[in-house]
């Protein structure tokens, strides 16, 4: 079975705090891709990052970083020094073949 679990339904932090969004996936495929998307209050979906199953290097992009660990089937997303503009719903997604499976999303509230 293919599945993505985002156990944190909602997270609330104060601006400048660091926050980590968890993502755990299940797949029997050896080749697959993982994604994070952001959905701000305006409703559009914005692509953030893609990772393939053979590349376990962590990635940093500004205040955003991603930790991919195949051993624990996790692809976690950390926002450093959070800002109010980071308030959004964040989706983790798994694509083993032609279909993409999304997690239920984590709603992040960043308070000023």
């Amino acid at each position, binding site marked *: 079975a293919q599945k*993505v679990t*985002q156990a944190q339904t909602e997270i609330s932090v104060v601006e400048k705090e660091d926050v980590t969004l968890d993502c755990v996936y299940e797949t029997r495929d050896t080749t697959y*891709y993982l*994604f994070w998307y952001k959905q701000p209050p305006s*409703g*559009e*979906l914005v*692509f953030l990052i*893609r990772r*393939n199953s053979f590349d376990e290097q962590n990635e940093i992009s500004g205040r955003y970083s991603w930790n991919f660990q195949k051993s624990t089937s996790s692809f976690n997303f950390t926002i450093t020094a959070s800002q109010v503009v980071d308030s959004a719903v964040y*989706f983790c997604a798994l*694509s083993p*073949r*032609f*279909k*993409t*499976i*999304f*997690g*239920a*999303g984590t709603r992040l509230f960043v308070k000023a």
Partner: protein
Amino acid sequence: DAGITQSPRHKVTETGTPVTLRCHQTENHRYMYWYRQDPGHGLRLIHYSYGVKDTDKGEVSDGYSVSRSKTEDFLLTLESATSSQTSVYFCAISEQGVGIEQFFGPGTRLTVL
């Protein structure tokens, strides 16, 4: 921004009526997708297309049909709308079917009374 539009953006309809949602792209991408977004479920794939007249079912395809007669247009039809189909519908496109990000349209909010 990827050129993807959806129409209508909002629609209220009654149970039992047919509804067609349109997705139009200007990117000439081969793959197009229809998702629905519901609280607690994230996005769930309804149908997708991998070329003109080539479509396949997703995980929640019951009650929906699709058609793609041109590269740029992907239509989603609810033959007889039910209240359980009240949702936000997103269209997405991608150049390839695997291993590449999808670009999403603005969404259509459908309410079935």
